């Protein structure tokens, strides 16, 4: 699983869901997190973290947001050499086949559907970690 010092970026336009994700992370032992309220601000936070040498090591991002959606942020992240291998999990209220395919094509690490239990969230997070660990080892 991720190191307890892993820095997570939580991106969601609703404070409620940001709080739920942060609390779920904290309950799992991860206390190092930042937040952003839309995709554009999420990208700014990633760049700022990188430039100030406090990089984020995983993004947990809502799908539907103003300014830049979760999918658009994912594409922007994957197109940027600094972040293209960054673990990126989408949190979505929607679970449509076409969206899942789109997200997979864009390089999402995994996704979790709202409403989720802490167990579901942590299991998905483990899968994200395993996927990226395997890629690093390869």
């Amino acid at each position, binding site marked *: 699983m991720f190191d307890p010092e892993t820095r997570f970026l939580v991106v969601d*336009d*609703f*404070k*409620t*869901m940001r*709080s*739920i994700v942060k*609390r779920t992370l904290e309950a799992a032992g991860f206390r190092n997190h930042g937040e952003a309220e839309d995709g554009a601000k999420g990208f700014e936070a990633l760049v700022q973290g990188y430039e100030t040498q406090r990089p984020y090591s995983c993004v947990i991002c809502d799908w*539907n947001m*103003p300014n830049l959606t979760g999918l658009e942020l994912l594409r922007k992240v994957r197109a940027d050499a600094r972040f293209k291998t960054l673990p990126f999990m989408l949190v*979505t*209220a*929607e*679970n*449509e*086949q*076409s969206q899942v395919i789109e997200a997979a094509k864009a390089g999402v690490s995994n996704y979790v559907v*709202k*409403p989720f*239990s802490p167990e579901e969230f942590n299991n998905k997070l483990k899968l994200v970690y395993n996927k990226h660990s395997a890629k690093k080892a390869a």
Partner: protein
Amino acid sequence: MGAPKISDRSFFEEEVGLSLFEAAAKTVESYFGMRPAKSNPILAMDLVVPFEAGGLILFQADGTAVQMILGFEKNFLFELYFKMLGDRVTEINGDLLDCAAELTNIVYGYAKAPLVNKGHSFAPGRPEGTQDLNSRLKNKKSLEIPFQIQPDKKTFSLILSV
């Protein structure tokens, strides 16, 4: 071949409406740990509801403009907020309204996914939290499905207006 269009028949009898009602029950159950019971539906123009707060989303379903409201009795919303976030609130504030909006977002998304997979089309707006439910029901034909957690107490309702 796509799914039948809801505009061809009464919106409220369609699987779109039924999916939304089921999604509301399941979403509340997932946080509250208890499945709410549905009461008899109310169909009316200019519906008036007794709720102090709720979430609202406007969307297009197969070309029909729909307004969906999740209206809550405030003490129930306080309890739901606690179940979701672990914090107690004792008054309606911005955080509580944000929670109501997010619940509305979850219900909409939960209902939408299987319907889209069946060929229905949706175009969503952005959910919002509001205390001003009745003015949003004026001049609209609405269907209210009340839900109860305790017997004889209307706890929350899903209200669809077209």
